[in-house]
C-alpha cells in the first residue's frame, strides 16, 4: 500500500459509511480520515447494544468494525437470508487481492458491504481505514512505552533514594551501583531497582 488513498469519484463520496468502534479516539481519527477523503456520509457508533436495529436504521452501504469488538459476530447474521434483513450484507473479501484482506485483519479492522456493491468502490475506504488503524496502534504503542519509561524512572529514583540513605552514597554513586548490578546480572536497571525496593520493604 503506497500513498494516500483517494476517494475522489462522486459515486464513492456518496456512500454511507458506518464506523463501529468502542475506542472513541480511533473512531474520531477514522471519521476525520474518511471526511478528509471526501466522504460526507459517515455515521459513528460506539455502543453495540441492539446493534442490528442500529444497522437497519442507519442502513449503511459500508460497515467498518474493529476486530476487538465481540459484536462482530452479530454482523455475521446479516449474511443469512432472513426476513429481518432489508439489504443483505456481505463481508469485504476480495479474492483477487488477498493482501488487502490480510492487512485489514492484521491492522484489526474488518469491512462489510451491501451485497452487490462493487468491491473496487470501497477499496480506497478500506485502505484508508487500515492506515488509520495502524497509525492509532503506533500511537498507542508509543504512549504505552512512554508510560512504562515514566514508571521505571520513578522506581529507579526510589531505589536510588534507598541506597543513598542505607549505604550513604551520593545520587550518582547509587545510580552507578544499580547500573553495574544490572549489567552483571544481565537484567534491566528498573528490575534491579524494583528488587532493591522489595528487599527494603521486607527488611522494614
Amino acid at each position, binding site marked *: 500500500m503506497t500513498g494516500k488513498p483517494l476517494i475522489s469519484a462522486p459515486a464513492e463520496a456518496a456512500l454511507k459509511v458506518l464506523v463501529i468502534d468502542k475506542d472513541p479516539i480511533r473512531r474520531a481519527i477514522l471519521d476525520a480520515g474518511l471526511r478528509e477523503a471526501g466522504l460526507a456520509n459517515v455515521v459513528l457508533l460506539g455502543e453495540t447494544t441492539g446493534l*442490528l436495529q442500529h444497522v437497519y436504521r442507519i442502513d449503511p452501504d459500508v460497515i467498518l468494525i474493529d476486530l476487538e469488538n465481540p459484536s462482530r*459476530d452479530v454482523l*455475521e447474521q446479516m449474511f443469512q437470508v432472513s426476513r429481518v434483513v432489508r439489504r443483505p450484507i456481505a463481508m469485504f473479501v476480495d479474492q483477487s487481492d488477498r493482501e488487502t484482506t490480510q492487512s485489514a485483519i492484521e491492522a484489526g479492522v*474488518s469491512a462489510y458491504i451491501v451485497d452487490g456493491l462493487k468491491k473496487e468502490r470501497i477499496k480506497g475506504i478500506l485502505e484508508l481505514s487500515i492506515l488509520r488503524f495502524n497509525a492509532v496502534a503506533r500511537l498507542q504503542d508509543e504512549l504505552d512505552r512512554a508510560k512504562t519509561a515514566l514508571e521505571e524512572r520513578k522506581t529507579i529514583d526510589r531505589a536510588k533514594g534507598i541506597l543513598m540513605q542505607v549505604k550513604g552514597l551520593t545520587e550518582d554513586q547509587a545510580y552507578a551501583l544499580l547500573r553495574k548490578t544490572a549489567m552483571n546480572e544481565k537484567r534491566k536497571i528498573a528490575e534491579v531497582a524494583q528488587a532493591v525496593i522489595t528487599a527494603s520493604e521486607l527488611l522494614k
Partner: protein
Amino acid sequence: MTGRATGATRLTIGFIPLADAAALIVAADRGFAAEEGLDLDLVREVSWSNVRDKLNIGLLDAAHLLAPLAVASSLGLGHIKVPLTVPFNLALNGNAITVSPALWSALADAADGDIADAAVSARALARVVAQRKARGALPLTLGMTFPFSHHNYQLRFWMAAGGVVPDDDVQLVVLPPPYMAESLASGHVDGFCVGAPWSSAAVDLGTGRILHFGAEIVARAAEKVLAVRQCWADEQPQLVARLVRALERAAAFVAEPANRDEVARLVAAPARLGVTAEIIRRTVDGRLRVAGDGSVRASDRYLVIGRLGANRPDPVQAAWAYAQMVRWGQAPLTPALQAAATGVFRPDLYDSAARSHAGILVGEPADGIGEFAGAAFDPRDIAGYLAGWPIRRS
C-alpha cells in the same frame, strides 16, 4: 505456566473463552503439548468471525472452533471457501437453553406436564407464542452465538419439534456470550442457548433460569473441534499427529474426576477464561445450579470431554450439522456438498495418531446423534430425514 520446552515447535492457536476449550488449555498449561515437542501459544479471541478469519489467512495455525463453522468454512457458506480439517473433537455437548424468569413462569403455566421434558417445554413454547400473537405482543427474542452453531440448531430443533416456526414465530439474534446474562436482565432477549459457563453466569446473576441442557435436545453433538487448514494438515501430518496426541492426553486428564480442581483452576485462570474456578468446576462436574432458589440439575452428558469416545471426529456429526444447514436454508442439498461436509471430520487422522481407541460405546445413541424427537438420523438419506420435519426452510 509450565510446558515451555526449548526447541519445541511453536503453534499459535486461537480460542474463545469457553469451558469446552479445556483440553486445549490443559494441553498448553500442564505440559502435555511440551511432551510432544510443541509450544502452544493460545490466543484469546473475542468473536468466532475473528477466529475463522485469522485461521483462514494463516495468522493462526489451529483453532478451537464451532463444529458447524468448520463445516461452513469448508463449504464456503457465509464467507470465502477455505477447506478446513478436523483431526480432533474437543468437546461434545456443553450448551444450555436459559430463559428469563418471566418466560420460565409462562412456560410452566402453559405446560401439559413437566417442563424438564423437552417435548413438554417445546409444546409449552408453542402455546406461549400463540398467546402472545393473540394479544398482539411482540414476538419472543432468543439469543444464540453464531449462525453456524449448535446453539442456533439446538434452539431451532427444540422449538420446531413443538410446532414453533423459528423464522416466523420468534426472533433469533446473535449475541456474544459475555453479553447474554445482561441481555436477559435488560429484556433485550427472553432466552438464549449458549456454551458454558455463560448460562451459569445468568443463573448466578439472577437474570436467568436454565431450562434445558443441550444434551436433552441432542444427546450427542460435536460442539467444538480443533480445526486446521486442510493444506496445513496435508503438508505436515506429523505435526497434526503430535497435536492430536497432546490433546488426547490432556482430554484424558480433564476426564479424570480426581483432576477436576486442577482443571477448573487452569481453565479459569486470568489469561484463559478469567472467571472463578468454582463456576468451571460446576461445568466439568455437570452439576449446575439451574435457578436462583438453588435447585440443581446434574448430568454426566452436560459437557463431555475425553469420555464416551468424544475425541474421535465422527463424520456423522458433520453430516448432521450439514443437514441442519439445509433444513434452515443456509445450504442447498447436493451430494457434492454433503461429501465435502463429511470429509471435514477426519477420524483417520485421529486413528493414526492416537494412543488409545474407544471400543464399542455402550449406551450411546444408535444413530450417533440422539435427537429428543423424530426418527433416527440417517446420513445416507438426508432428504428423507428432512421430509420428516414439516417445519423447515428448504
